[in-house]
């Protein structure tokens, strides 16, 4: 599964994207965040305030409870500021 990071989440993690090999028990967006936070300081910093994190599963807005089981691509980003 591909993970993509945007804006200050990308900067804090230090990566624009990466290929993830997840353990089977990681099944939702929230569980993925828990798993990522355990990977290092940059991740912990990026996800320190979970309420300000948005996610998309296969380019569709997702919630913390959304399933990632058959996802090809998951993106994490801050609240949007376009327009």
């Amino acid at each position, binding site marked *: 599964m591909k993970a993509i990071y*945007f*804006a200050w989440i990308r900067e804090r993690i230090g990566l624009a994207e990466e290929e993830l090999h997840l353990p089977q028990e990681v099944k939702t967006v929230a569980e993925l965040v828990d798993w990522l936070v355990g990977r290092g300081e940059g991740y912990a910093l990026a996800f320190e305030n979970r309420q300000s994190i948005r996610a998309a599963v296969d380019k569709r*807005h997702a919630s913390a409870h959304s399933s990632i089981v058959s996802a090809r691509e998951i993106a994490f980003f801050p609240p949007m*500021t*376009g*327009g």
Partner: protein
Amino acid sequence: MVALKVRVQLEDFNAQEEEKRLLSDRRDIGAIISFIGLCRDEEPPLSALELEHYAGMAETEIEAVAKEASSRWPIFGATIIHRYGMIKPGEQIVLTLVAAAHREAAFASAQFIMDYLKTKAPFWKKRHFLDGAASDWIAPKIEDDLALRRWQESKSPGG
């Protein structure tokens, strides 16, 4: 059929040309609303706004907003262009054109599109300062969420 055109691009756009294209040769259009969002300078002065976007998702989210607008109001067509990359103060960021028979539908749907686009389309703005101070990401405005809520109260949410 409603002609909905969405583009996400690095280059600038020409609102007059887009307006002509949207009008084409139709004679039944009574109103066109043209909204242009610009990069506004601030204090301390900006060298540029950097717009980051999620390619692929940005287009589909804007298309979904345009489609929702066309299901709520009787409009003939809409053109929405959103730029990304480095944009200097005074330069154009976003164009929303809506054509309809009457102004009510054109005004309301153009505002709806902009309100939704701001909180649904994956774009992020970073400020770069002229004096070389550390650049920073713009935080979302509470007013933008309130603007969105108004539409959700006026009709049941459509997505």
